[in-house]
């Protein structure tokens, strides 16, 4: 891999810098400890770090071996037999209290070897050092064993060329369930980091109470920031902070883009998806069916994927067919080639063609898997319920299908997604209807879910009959924001509603209207939506945007003059929403979007995070 940021440098704002920085910091950290090292990882992080550095890089910096941190594993990390012991044992962990127990156990187990061989122990917290964790380590009596206890600051990381993520999965639950505002503090810090790289963003917009808080934290931090930030060269013109709790509706719906469906069906983590191996078996030479799951990297580095990821799934088959045809015609060229020069050109293109071919094969398989997933009656029925509800049909009574799902004990998250949807589309459920649902859920899934339901009420996903979400009026929103669009062209979309086949995500509508015609046109709607509005807050003196941005930007006229908006989602964003923003960027109407989020979510992962009892 020559250029590790190749995939990150296609957008108008190059998020590669963020990755480069993270990489440099990591290497600095490794080089700080001279000699051979053994790394012990908090399992979640090891996957996450694959976004920053590949395994070989660790090797280059003298990391002898890498291990997962496991509780009560009998084996030792430090080989007792070798004559050449490592100089350092480095633990890398998230600041999570429960992980501290595991670390303490490990340290105690290795204590003897560490002492005998004079090995130094180090502990690094990612993304920040936690007082509570250190306290815990002290309580466990192992704090003194570490030569260094420090942090590897990782405010935000680049998932792709246009999307940054804090990978803060518990952000929504922390904020709305526990009233723990830590995610906002770290989001503000992430914004500081972003501004250090791309300049101080001149204006801020936002919606929702968490947006407001983030904004004020950011302003506070900016006071302490040194003047070095070069506001002349801000590459981002506008910041839009969207609080997930402003739009809880969208994630409850099933995403219908290609990438969104892959996430719904199989779950994408750190841009990677694990797929059932059977489909891919015929690719391997042996006849045996591989047992290990097939790992596929899903980023814009694969040009084919970047073309299909945001398509409505109904258009994916067609797209892949077109791609196949293009490839075939390219392959056909060779038959009627007489000129040697042409042939040489063709030969030079072969590796590229092979790459496309491989990618095409992979995605044809994935598409088939997704087709199986969407082809079930269940999926179809689920979708019709969603559409019925978002259209405001029969939202005020017990829905027979949902009821049936409960009686059949379908996965609870599936039921809850629909139930929350119904509640929001009806501006809260009538007491009788609500209690009926609750009773049936408890009878099917158990009494403990009384607490689960309470949690969903707390975060505003379900509104208890008496309360209702203040001011929220779905019908008004639906009409004035044109959330439901009847005529959707899934192949050649003309509106963002294609990502949910007829429903335009509320959050993205807000972003779209902000760009054109401006939020002034929806003042009444903004009042209905929960939380305060941040309107045109100036961070720096406004400067007229000159058509010529910088001489180094080589791009078409339209994009060089376009207004770049960074949309920061507090509490998570779905792939379908990202697709909708990319769709808006692709229209070349003078508005471009780059995205940042606390994490990427879908309805199921969001609810899973709220249901602690499932632990």
């Amino acid at each position, binding site marked *: 891999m020559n250029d590790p940021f190749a995939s990150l440098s296609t957008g108008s704002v190059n998020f590669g810098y963020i990755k480069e920085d993270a990489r440099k910091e990591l290497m600095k950290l490794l080089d700080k400890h001279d000699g051979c090292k053994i790394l012990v990882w908090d399992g979640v992080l090891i996957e996450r770090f694959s976004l920053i550095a590949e395994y070989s890089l660790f090797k280059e910096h003298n990391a002898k071996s890498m291990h997962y941190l496991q509780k009560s594993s009998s084996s030792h990390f430090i080989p007792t037999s070798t004559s050449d012991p490592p100089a350092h044992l480095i633990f890398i962990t998230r*600041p999570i*209290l*429960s992980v501290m127990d595991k670390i303490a156990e490990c340290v105690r187990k290795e204590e003897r070897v560490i002492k005998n061989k004079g090995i130094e122990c180090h502990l690094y917290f990612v993304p*920040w*050092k*936690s*007082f*509570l964790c250190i*306290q815990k380590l002290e309580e466990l009596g192992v704090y003194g064993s570490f030569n260094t206890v420090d942090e590897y600051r990782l405010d935000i990381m680049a998932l792709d060329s246009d999307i940054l993520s804090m990978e803060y999965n518990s952000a929504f639950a922390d904020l709305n369930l*526990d*009233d*723990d*505002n*830590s995610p*906002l*503090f770290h989001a*503000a810090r992430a914004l500081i980091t972003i501004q250090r790289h791309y300049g101080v963003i001149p204006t801020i917009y936002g919606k929702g109470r968490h947006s407001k*808080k983030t904004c004020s*934290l950011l302003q*506070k931090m900016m*006071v*302490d920031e*040194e*003047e070095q930030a070069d506001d002349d060269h801000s590459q981002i013109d506008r910041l839009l902070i969207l609080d997930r709790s402003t739009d809880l509706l969208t994630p409850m719906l099933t995403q219908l883009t290609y990438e969104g469906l892959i996430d719904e069906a199989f779950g994408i983590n750190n841009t990677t998806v694990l797929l059932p191996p059977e489909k891919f078996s015929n690719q391997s030479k042996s006849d045996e069916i591989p047992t290990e799951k097939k790992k596929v990297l899903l980023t814009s580095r694969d040009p084919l994927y970047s073309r299909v990821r945001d398509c409505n799934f109904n258009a994916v088959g067609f797209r892949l067919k077109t791609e196949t045809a293009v490839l075939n015609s390219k392959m056909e060229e060779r038959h009627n080639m007489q000129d040697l020069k042409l042939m040489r050109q063709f030969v030079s293109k072969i590796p590229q063609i092979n790459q496309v071919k491989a990618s095409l094969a992979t995605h044809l398989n994935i598409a088939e898997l997704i087709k199986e997933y969407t082809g079930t009656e269940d999926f179809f029925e689920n979708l019709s319920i969603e559409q019925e509800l978002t259209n405001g049909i029969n939202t005020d009574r017990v829905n027979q299908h949902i*009821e*049936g799902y409960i*009686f*059949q*004990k379908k996965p609870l998250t599936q039921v809850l997604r629909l139930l929350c949807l119904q509640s929001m589309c009806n501006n809260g459920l009538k007491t009788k209807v609500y*209690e009926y649902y*609750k*009773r*049936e859920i*408890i*009878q*099917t*899934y*158990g*009494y*403990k879910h*009384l*607490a689960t339901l*309470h949690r969903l009420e707390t975060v505003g996903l379900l509104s208890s009959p008496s309360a209702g979400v203040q001011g929220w009026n779905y019908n008004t929103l639906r009409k004035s924001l044109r959330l439901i669009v009847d005529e959707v062209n899934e192949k050649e979309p003309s509106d963002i509603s294609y990502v949910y086949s007829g429903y335009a995500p509320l959050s993205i509508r807000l972003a779209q209207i902000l760009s054109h015609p401006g939020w002034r046109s929806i003042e009444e709607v903004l009042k209905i939506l929960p939380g305060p509005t941040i309107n045109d807050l100036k961070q720096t003196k406004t400067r007229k945007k000159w058509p010529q941005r910088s001489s180094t930007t080589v791009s078409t006229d339209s994009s060089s003059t376009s207004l770049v908006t960074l949309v920061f989602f507090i509490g998570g964003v779905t792939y379908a929403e990202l697709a909708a923003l990319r769709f808006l960027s692709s229209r070349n109407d003078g508005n471009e979007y780059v995205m940042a989020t606390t994490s990427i979510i879908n309805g199921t992962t969001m609810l899973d995070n709220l249901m602690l*009892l499932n632990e």
Partner: protein
Amino acid sequence: MTETLGWIQLGKRYIRKCTLYEPMCWNAGIDLSKHIVSISRYGGLIALGNRESNNGRNLTIHIYNAAGKEISSFKWNSGPFLGMGWTNSDDLLCIQEDGKILLYDIFGQFIRIIRMGKECEDHRVLEYEIFLSSAGTGVVVMNGLYRFMVVNNVDEPKVRTLSQVPGLKSTPPSSWCALPGPRGCRVLAANDDEIYLLDQGDLCTRQYPTGLSSEPASYICMSVSLDRKHVALYTNEATVWIGSADFKEKYCELRTNEGGCPKQMLWCCNCVVSFGSASDRPTDDKALVIYWQKKILVIGPGKDWVRYDVEEDYSNTSIHGAAVLCADVDGIHIITGNRHEYLQHVPKTVEDIYFPGSVEPGSVLYDASKEYERQSEKADEYLRILLDKNELERAVEQCTIASTFEFVSRSQKQLLRAASFGKTFRPELELTDLFVNACQYLRVLNALHDFNVGIALTAAQLQHLKMDCLIDRLVVRRQFRLAFYICKFLKMAEDRGSSRILSHWACYKVQQSNVPDEKIAYDIRNKLKNARGVSYASVAEKAVEKGRKDLAIKLLEFESRASEQVRLLSKLGKHTLAVEKAVESGDSDLAYEAITRLRERSSLSDFLVAIRQHPIAYKLHLKYCREQNQRMLKDLHEQEDNFIELANCHVRDSYGPIRREERNVALHSALDSFNKARNEFAAKMTDEQLQLVKDQIDLEQETGGNYIDSSLHDTLLMLLSSNYNQKAEKMRKQFKVSDKRWWWVKLTALADQRNFSELEAFSRSKKSPIGYMPFLESCVRNNAPKEAEKYVSKVAKDQQVAALVKTGNMRAAADMAIQIKNLCDLELVHKKCGPEHRDVQERVGNFLQQLR
């Protein structure tokens, strides 16, 4: 030429005596001979103590700036006073006869005490010398046993004893002086005619001055230059021997014809690299200065000499002609009752320009500039000479550099004007930089020379001292305003310059004990609000040091770095405020730290009262408890009357591998809490759960299965699957299970058992509340399509095609769809046809086209 007035030739070089201040600000009647005087290097602070006071009683020490303006004075109220001297950071060392050394700042504030040890205490200190070296400021003392003790750095006082002077009888050494070196200070001491170099431990080597013309009976005075390169010996026969410090080289020997021991003997050297150093190497200027009561003798290394009379011009008879001399790095301060003069070698550059008949480019340019002012055509002529020789650049450089050596602004201006004139023809950037730099230096130097400030620095000294260090000194002298403007003028970075000064100013301000807290806090805020990077925490820390806690807390209000603010507040015991500030910062980790401190320092009840006042901190604490301390969590909810959350805790408690009673207690507590919360629905659910658990326990005893922790639905399913139909029926009634659920559970259980006959019987038992599609589907799911087909006819008419499709009977489905001509159904069939039903698909496809 007036500029060379007062220059006196000394060998190949010239020396000059420049008047820095005249008259002095102090009382004109002062008699320096009656005082112990000490003058500081780099700036010329003057400390005076009355020599005639009795053993330090009634002694007052006055501190003046270089212009004789009093900075402070303080009454000596310690032990017997011996003498004093300045450190390199402008602090005053006062030495007592008992070997104690007291350190004061220039405002007479006592700083600390240094002890020279028991031996000095017992045997009195007789003589001392204070020296500066790379290690800092050091002191050598000689006690009553004629032994030398050294402290190399007063900041880390370690007393070392030097070797004794060999062969010493009952008389003290006839003379001695300190010789600081890289490995600590040594002492040169003479026992009459023998000179020894005394080192640490017992090391001691005799020194033999080279080429001595006659052996003297005794050396009565000696002196080492500041750069430790040269040494001078004065014999009882009034002869001076000067040479290198290792005695190996003799510069010259001279008979002075003076009676008596000199009052002072010191070296006038140039041991710093001067301004614009690139072209000017430090010249090896050296001369010995000897001072007797009435005259000063300057001796050059080539045996040339010059004599000055002290106060030769005084007309006021009340002024006593006493002077005090002090060697600085590039000259000698000479202070008398009404003057502060500086004796130095004329810097080479200055000499080159002013010396009559000089053909140095600088001199030519200087002349050209003067002619130009006179509007004489000679200006052009001179300039051409320089241009032809390509020497203009060098000329500008010389004039610029020379200007910085001048003390009088008229001369400075003259030279700068010449430089500027020349510069118009050579617009090189380096020259401009040099020029600008020189102007800046002069501006600063002239400001320092003002008698109110009274810092007598030469350009070379300032260059050597560095601007940062100068700022520090100004801060120490509380010249905040001047320091601030110098920083602004020189555009120094804020953290190094103006902000730093403001912080110091604020630290000084908080020490003004007579000003009320509010006023100080207001003043500080007012001055500092536009300064970047000022640490209010460090100012507050100073306030704490001075015992002003309240002021510190007020100041901390302005601190923007929450971590500093919280840390100090915690230290001050303001834990509640620390929590508040930590929470405001948004940094939860900091908040947890503050909460923990609060918890550690207060009783549980106080803690709970305090934390409840900060909702966000309270929520954070709840979160922590949820993970780490369930007991505390419940207490908190109970205290807050948050019964719903309390109930939820109990709900959670009622699960898991716990004993029967515990489960019951948990559920009853939950019930109680829900009742208190007036949540009827949840209370009812809890009631039912209690009943369910009770029934499940019974069931476990009766059947031996595992029922606990299962939902009602699962319990029913398990019972039906195990054919405990009676028990299931009983539970159905007891829990008022809805018909729909009952049908679902029962059909699922039967189909999963593949008990299709019973399933069919059940379907016929009465009209199904859930329709018949579920029956059909459950058969399909259990791979019994034949069984499934039985239900096709029972399914609602509009779903029959779909039902047929589900059973896999595509042909029948197609037939029916075609028959009823329903578009949706036709499409469904068309879509669901697999490869084995290609023909059906074609038929339906054709029909669909016809229909459209």
